[in-house]
């Protein structure tokens, strides 16, 4: 840059205490004027050593830990962990348990995406209105969780071999009522934002991730699909009987933050569709298989993955025939999606960096674990 005015870059810390870091995440940004020339992420403020702690507890006792990694999608986390242990121990889940799991995972996706969309629009500066609307709808999903599992945020509902309890009597009508109203709300949200010129100006061509970078960086979830790559584990590697349901994968055009936004909005609709099918075809029978409390899976290792709201959520469990896992590892989609932060932010302005961070939809509890 050959500007007659001499300017020198300086470093500003966005976080750990900052309104838009969604937790205690720190982004060290070097700026030249308004332009970002370097960005570095500093993580670890919320490290709770969950992977190590899990080695000291039994397999069942570890389920609440998974609630608290990604606290915005506890059901999906429970599911991923239970799938890994079931794979390791060779346990089959009854049909009804699988259907309930699908319903819960999709409800969780709706709740989590609402939070993501709301927080993202907040980052673009829409002063709290979309986030309040989204939280209002998310509350309704959390009410359903409360009805089923007794908890709203950290549900601890899935069990190895099925789910903890059968769904209550009121659950089905309440869910049907919710999924009847949700598409209308999604349209309302789209009406407020999707065609809004200011929103388009803020998010179009901002934080572009080209498809090759998305694949090479091992991104997952809406981040990957926003770049135009049709990849969804529910289709590519079905679990819990997802192959039975009819739904489509929304993909973006060029991988900017707007594409990620519209992909998330469309995924809400697809989730509603899946829940409807799962409720229609809800089989009878037991909701869970009997599993010994002190489970000692045979020696070996297992990796199970689910399509969480943020992408591929993997659980790797190694057993040495003890009552607790020998090694327990989580593949957190937030952390890996965040690895392209530098590519997304450098060259843009500070405001773009915030939008880029918001479009990743991070949960710091999952990044640091």
């Amino acid at each position: 840059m050959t500007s007659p005015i001499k300017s020198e870059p300086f470093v500003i810390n966005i976080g750990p205490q900052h309104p838009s870091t969604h937790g205690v995440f720190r982004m060290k940004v070097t700026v030249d004027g308004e332009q970002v020339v370097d960005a570095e992420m500093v993580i670890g403020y919320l490290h709770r050593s969950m992977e190590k702690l899990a080695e000291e507890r039994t397999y069942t006792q570890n389920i609440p830990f998974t609630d608290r990694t990604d606290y915005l999608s506890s059901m999906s986390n429970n599911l991923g962990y239970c799938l890994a242990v079931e794979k390791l121990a060779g346990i089959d889940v009854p049909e009804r348990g699988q259907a309930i799991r699908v319903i819960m995972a999709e409800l969780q996706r709706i709740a989590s995406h609402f939070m993501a969309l709301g927080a993202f629009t907040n980052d673009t500066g829409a002063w709290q209105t979309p986030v309040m609307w989204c939280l209002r709808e998310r509350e309704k999903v959390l009410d359903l969780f409360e009805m089923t599992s007794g908890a709203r945020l950290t549900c601890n509902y899935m069990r190895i071999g099925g789910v903890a309890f059968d769904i209550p009597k009121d659950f089905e009508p309440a869910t049907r009522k919710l999924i009847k109203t949700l598409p209308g709300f999604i349209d309302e949200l789209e009406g407020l934002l999707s065609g809004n010129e200011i929103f388009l100006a803020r998010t179009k061509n901002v934080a572009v991730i080209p498809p090759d970078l998305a694949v090479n960086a091992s991104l997952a979830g809406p981040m990957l699909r926003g770049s135009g790559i049709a990849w969804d584990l529910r289709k590519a590697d079905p679990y819990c009987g997802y192959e039975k349901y009819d739904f489509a994968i929304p993909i973006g055009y060029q991988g900017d933050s707007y594409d990620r936004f519209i992909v998330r909005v469309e995924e809400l609709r697809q989730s509603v569709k899946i829940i409807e099918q799962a409720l229609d075809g809800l089989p009878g029978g037991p909701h869970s298989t009997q599993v010994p409390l002190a489970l000692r899976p045979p020696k070996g290792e297992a990796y199970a993955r689910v399509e969480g709201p943020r992408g591929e959520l993997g659980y790797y469990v190694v057993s040495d025939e003890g009552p607790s896992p020998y090694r327990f590892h989580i593949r957190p989609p937030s952390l890996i999606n965040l690895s392209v932060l530098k590519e997304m932010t450098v060259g843009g302005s500070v405001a773009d960096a915030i939008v880029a961070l918001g479009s990743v939809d991070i949960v710091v509890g999952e990044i640091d674990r």
Partner: protein
Amino acid sequence: MRVQFLATDNWYDLRDLSNLSSAILDGLDKIAPQGVVYVAAALIGFVAAFLIFVLPSQLFVGVLGERKLIGRIQSRYGPNRVGPYGVLQPIADALKLLTKESLTPVAADRLVMYMAPVLFVMPAVLMWAVIPFGPNMIFADIPVALVYFLAISSLPVLASFMAGWSHNNKYSLFGAMRIVAMAISYEIPLVLSLLGVVVLTETLSLQEMVFWQDRFDIWLFAVQPLAMIIYFIAVSAELNRTPTDIAEAESEIVAGYLTEYSGMKWGLFYGMDIGYALGAAAFGVTVFFGGWTLFGLEEWVPAWMIFVVKVWAFYFLFIWTRGTLPRLRIDQLMSFAWKYMLPLALFNLLIICTERILWTDAFDGDKPFIYLFAIANIIFAGLLILGWARLLGYRPERTQTRPRMVQEAGGYVPVAPARGEGR
């Protein structure tokens, strides 16, 4: 010029509050030395304006009304704990701010940081001097009121910059640089848009503008729709209202130039931000929406009440945009000022000058022609806004607001070249 009123000249007739103040001043003139009455007039004017309008509006429209309305927009209740319906909330807020400790960072420039809120408050008081609340209720009916108002209302930028600079905080510095850049950019379309009004009414006095609108029975926003839109956008940019609040963009730079302020120092900035917004609303109402007149109703209802209600209605626009729109980026905001608003303001000026010459030379200033001009200008405004945006590449029909849908998981799906297919 005197508009007919039901209001009498008796001092106790509160339909025209100037009766009371002139009675006091007349009495004072008889007993006090000569200079005192001028000081007393100033004090009465400001105290009255503040007690009757500015302070209640700030508290109950700016703080409570805004929070309530935004609450409704966001489907929540807003403050409803203090007093019935939460009406005492602003007072509780003010008390809380007064009792809070006002921190100063060690490395801050203490003097500048202390002075900035004071400097910020002063213009907020001064600008009410030229706003007409009624036919006689104007503190200083100076012939260059419009210039005075513009000059006074651009002063707080200095205070904001001082505030941002003094903190020794990077977020604050960002906010300060942004607000200066923005104020310089938006002052130009703002003044140019008001120039059209001046050309048409041939006066710089705000009271005269109100009389002009009363005489021709038309509000200037109908004759000057483009100027009104430009005024609204430019003024909300200068006021840091939400679509353009980049100087205190919460999600980016925490609180901009207010980051390190706490206690009543922050409270002064917050309160006076609302004060400026009210001032801008009052000015906009006076210039574009007929001030205290309402097509003859001002003869029956106290004029100042009409004015106050109009100002609140105008202020509602600020609240509404705040509750609805996302924020622009600084470079977009700058290019918006220079690439869209400045040319449009110039076009507007060109049109209104032509019309003015036509009107005086060809039509002898006949009243009906102003309605013709109004219709023409509304059409011009629509065409110009759309046409100019199209010229600079506004193509909403090419925006894909729905993602592509695929049924099977696979790899990358190349984007088919778009041929302007619809949403």
